[in-house]
């Protein structure tokens, strides 16, 4: 049994309005020098067989047309 | 009987849970011994203001609750009125003020979720939501944050569950800065003879819990009862914010309605404030039975929950039903179909006691009567304050503005500007009933299958009630009924939410007493009895209480939805008139607020009968299809109402009015209606109610007399001011 984390983020080049909103909000709070913000999703799961996670991402957890994913254990 | 740590809670624990020492002593007397942690937790919740209404119950008993159209009055999950053809409309309003101040998105969302459950708990399918919101001035970043969060939360929940949000109101006033108000009203439809009550019945019947699993939501306050094993860092395990899941509730709704349709239930109750504690105890109390609950049968989301936690958890989206033993399997199968995990967790007994067990051992045992009926009720000690307790609002207008500037200032003020930026975040279409969309008319209109329609509006007043709790409340109730009249609807019943400060303070007690008196008198005069409602007290900050804010929701009926009234001017050449016993005054008005004037100590008396007469005349004229438009005069007075009708119709108007008289132009009072229609129709109306012709529909601008005029675009721009609050 392993604990796996999947990070899903919008593909480069696709407008990410959530990322834009966060990037605009930070300077107002006193944080400068921030750019290239993207907002995505975290999926955490306990799996018996971690090698199946990639297929899960392809099939359900991410939409490969518009999202990239990264598996972190 | 034992508790986890082996020691009993103390009187200090009781006080930390919000009980008084006297109440704790009374509990010991009723139990015949000291309560353990499960029992103390349950008493502290059921005897809290929120559940017991201990400071308001006596006062609420003075309200009118009966009438020929009332099918279900106060005391059940929601009230219901008869709208003809065997159809009942259930409705109720409730507040979620304190949670919304903590986390506005989830506070408002779960407020909507809670009121919806009250509706389908009596077997009605929810068909509409309306919201009444109050925040501090929009110049405050915190108030803008709360507004944005609350609107998103209401949208999130209502839209996802497929119930249209068809109306509502929002106001911005200084006294709400520390204590915002989020009141949610819902309506539902049912066959009158198929509604279900919540009384548990039938000794030996089974209690089935269905919906979401139970976690530690909302337990925060009860954490003082943690046994020795829990350390301080476990506070994260007891979130005080309840998180709503509208998807779960949609399944719960469909499952509940199907269970009722197939006749599988003896009774049904939703789990709201105080979770299993209040649901089980109230079901037992209404049915005059006992209840036994095995907490280890409750499906949990978190491991290792103590019995008291399971009993007080406020996890959302859960229902409790009573089922005959032979039908439990069918109930569980239906729950499985809708994926809402039904579980048998207890039984109905004849002991008149609530017994809580874990692993077969009794961990709590209390008489139902002690829990539900024996909570002490307190008398208020009202005393009228010597002077106005609220400071004058901050001035926004410097003084010396022209009529032209004044109208634009009012139209762009936060309490008057268009609410479309809020409403466009709500689905007001789903279920295909919405005949009048937000801002098309003074009330929402929903068509029913039998060919008639219902109308509904929600109206509250804070500042006016602060000026004069009695007449301010009377005026507020009349305004709600006037809104219904403008679409052609006759009020059938009222729900109310009383939002006040600390009732143990004499001046708040006075506000509450006078407001309830006004509420009662007005509802009696309108034949619109109270069918249910809610009280939210202790809305108070160190610098003082909120404005006393009674909020009323009304439901009315109209026979022909094709004739539902509109507020926008229609045909060119129509005559514009002001109808009704309208005696406007600038006292406590929006203009007075913008000028930073001190609040008056009293408001003018209202001729309630005359206002009712005007409402009836307007209603009949609208139903007869005579009027092109009808619009109640409210905040900002006559000129604002005319501007709103210009904007609603997208067409100009030429008004011949005395231009110097500010009280006439911008003064407020109940009983004024700006109407338009063919000359003969206005003449016919004049025979039934005081009517003054004031102008004609036409042109591309709003002109007042010879000298003053505004283009439609100018009015539009001013009116769109709230858009900046939702970037």
């Amino acid at each position, binding site marked *: 049994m392993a604990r796996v984390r999947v990070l899903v983020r919008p593909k480069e080049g696709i407008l990410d309005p959530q990322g834009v909103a966060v990037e605009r909000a930070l300077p107002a709070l006193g944080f400068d020098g921030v750019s290239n913000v993207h907002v995505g999703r975290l999926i955490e799961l306990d799996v018996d067989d971690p090698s199946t996670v990639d297929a899960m991402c392809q099939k359900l957890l991410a939409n490969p047309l518009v999202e990239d994913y990264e598996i972190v254990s | 009987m034992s508790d986890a740590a082996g020691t009993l809670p103390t009187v200090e624990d009781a006080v930390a849970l919000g009980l008084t020492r006297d109440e704790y002593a009374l509990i010991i007397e009723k139990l015949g011994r000291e309560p353990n942690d499960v029992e103390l937790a349950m008493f502290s919740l059921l005897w809290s203001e929120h559940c017991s209404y201990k400071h308001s119950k006596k006062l609420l008993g003075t309200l009118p609750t009966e009438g020929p159209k009332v099918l279900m009055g106060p005391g059940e999950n929601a009230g219901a009125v008869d709208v003809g053809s065997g159809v009942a409309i259930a409705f109720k309003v409730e507040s979620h003020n304190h949670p919304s101040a903590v986390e506005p998105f989830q506070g408002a969302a779960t407020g909507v979720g809670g009121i919806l459950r009250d509706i389908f708990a009596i077997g009605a399918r929810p068909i509409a939501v309306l919201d009444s919101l109050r925040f501090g001035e929009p110049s405050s970043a915190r108030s803008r944050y709360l507004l944005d969060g609350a609107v998103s939360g209401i949208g999130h929940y209502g839209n996802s569950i497929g119930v249209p949000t068809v109306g509502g109101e929002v106001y911005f006033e200084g006294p709400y800065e520390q204590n915002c108000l989020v009141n949610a009203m819902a309506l539902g439809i049912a066959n009158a003879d198929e509604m279900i009550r919540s009384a548990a019945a039938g000794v030996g019947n089974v209690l089935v819990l269905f919906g979401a699993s139970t976690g530690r939501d909302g337990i925060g306050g009860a954490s003082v009862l943690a046994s020795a094993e829990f350390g301080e860092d476990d506070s994260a395990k007891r979130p005080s914010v309840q998180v709503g899941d509208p998807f779960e509730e*949609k399944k719960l709704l469909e499952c509940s309605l199907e269970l009722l349709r197939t006749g599988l239930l003896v009774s049904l109750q939703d789990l709201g404030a105080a979770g299993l504690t209040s649901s089980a105890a109230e079901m037992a109390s209404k049915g005059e039975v006992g209840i036994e609950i095995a907490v280890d049968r409750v499906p949990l989301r978190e491991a290792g929950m103590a019995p008291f936690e399971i009993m007080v958890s406020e996890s959302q989206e859960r229902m409790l039903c009573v089922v005959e033993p032979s039908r439990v399997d069918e109930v569980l199968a239906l729950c499985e179909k809708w994926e809402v995990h039904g579980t048998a967790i207890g039984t109905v007994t004849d002991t008149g006691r609530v017994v809580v067990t874990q692993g077969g051992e009794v961990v709590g045992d209390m008489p139902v009567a002690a829990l539900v009926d024996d909570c002490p009720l307190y008398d208020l000690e009202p005393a009228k304050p010597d002077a106005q307790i609220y400071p004058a609002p901050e001035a926004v207008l410097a003084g010396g503005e022209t009529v032209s500037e004044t109208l634009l200032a009012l139209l762009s003020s936060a309490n008057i500007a268009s609410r479309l930026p809020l409403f466009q975040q709500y689905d007001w279409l789903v279920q295909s009933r919405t005949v009048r969309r937000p801002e098309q008319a003074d009330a929402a209109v929903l068509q029913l299958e039998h060919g008639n329609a219902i109308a509904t509006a929600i109206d509250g007043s804070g500042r006016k009630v602060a000026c004069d709790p009695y007449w301010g409340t009377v005026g507020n109730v009349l305004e709600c009924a006037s809104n219904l009249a403008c679409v052609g609807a006759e009020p059938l019943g009222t729900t109310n939410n009383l939002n006040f400060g600390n009732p143990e303070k004499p001046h708040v007690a006075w506000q509450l007493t006078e407001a309830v008196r006004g509420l009662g008198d007005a509802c009696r005069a309108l034949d619109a009895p109270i069918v249910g409602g809610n009280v939210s007290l202790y809305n108070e900050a160190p610098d003082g209480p909120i404005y006393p804010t009674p909020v009323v929701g009304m439901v009315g009926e109209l026979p022909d939805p094709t004739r539902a009234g509109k507020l926008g001017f229609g045909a060119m050449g129509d005559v514009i008139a002001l109808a009704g016993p309208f005696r406007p005054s600038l006292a406590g008005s929006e203009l007075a607020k913008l000028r930073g004037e001190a609040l008056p100590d009293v408001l003018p008396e209202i001729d309630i009968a005359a206002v009712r007469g005007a409402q009836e005349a307007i209603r009949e004229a609208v139903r007869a299809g005579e009027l092109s438009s009808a619009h109640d005069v409210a905040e900002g007075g006559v000129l604002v109402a005319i501007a709103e009708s210009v904007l609603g119709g997208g067409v100009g108007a030429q008004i011949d009015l005395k231009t110097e008289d500010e009280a006439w132009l911008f003064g407020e009072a109940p009983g004024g209606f700006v109407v338009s229609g063919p000359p003969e129709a206005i003449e016919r109306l004049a025979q039934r109610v005081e009517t003054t012709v004031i102008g004609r529909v036409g042109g591309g601008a709003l002109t007042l007399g010879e000298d003053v005029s505004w283009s439609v675009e100018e009015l539009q721009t001013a009116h769109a001011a709230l858009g900046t609050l939702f970037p």
Partner: protein
Amino acid sequence: MKFGVITFPGTCDDVDARLACARVEGSDVVALWHRDRDLQGVDAVVVPGGFSYGDYLRAGAIARFSPMMESVIEFANDGGTVLGICNGFQVLCEAGLLPGALLPNVGLRFLCRQVNLEVVDTDTRFTSGMQTGEVLSIPAKHMSGRYFVPEDQVDGVRVVVRYAHDGNPNGSSNDIAGVCNAEGNVFGLMPHPEHAVDELTGSTDGLRIFQSMAGALV
């Protein structure tokens, strides 16, 4: 003409869609349950609006795997008529029956308002009988309606309706409001034609789409 309207857990506008289909003369309407596989011999399937599975993970991402959708995919591949409205459009894209994906509105807010749709392709069974350039007034209500398709694929997409008059509410590529597949038998759009079938509640322009599907629009 027999219409079938699917209900998933969380679907909201199924009843409205059934009511709309029922307004087409001579039509028959059945409800299709997500767990069933039997399409009951329908001539057209409607995948309605709402929040199937709460829009959790991604809108439509879970509903597309239901047994009923397996049957619908087979039905579509055999040339059957499939209409996806709002959440239905999202399900069809996730299922691969339509190209592209629906992303969150650029404004990041749910938006409910009437929109004007320009009919761009009248060579589909959903718009036959309409005129190219015809404008339909139909309400839109959604949180994630921004239609997206990669640059290199956008020319290959059959656009059926576009937001007209600068009225794009969600920032979709090329103002696209609805697309169909290459064969023209599967159509998805974000606005809600089933909420534009009754004069009392708004325009009746949406009814034309259902009538078209029944071959009843001439």
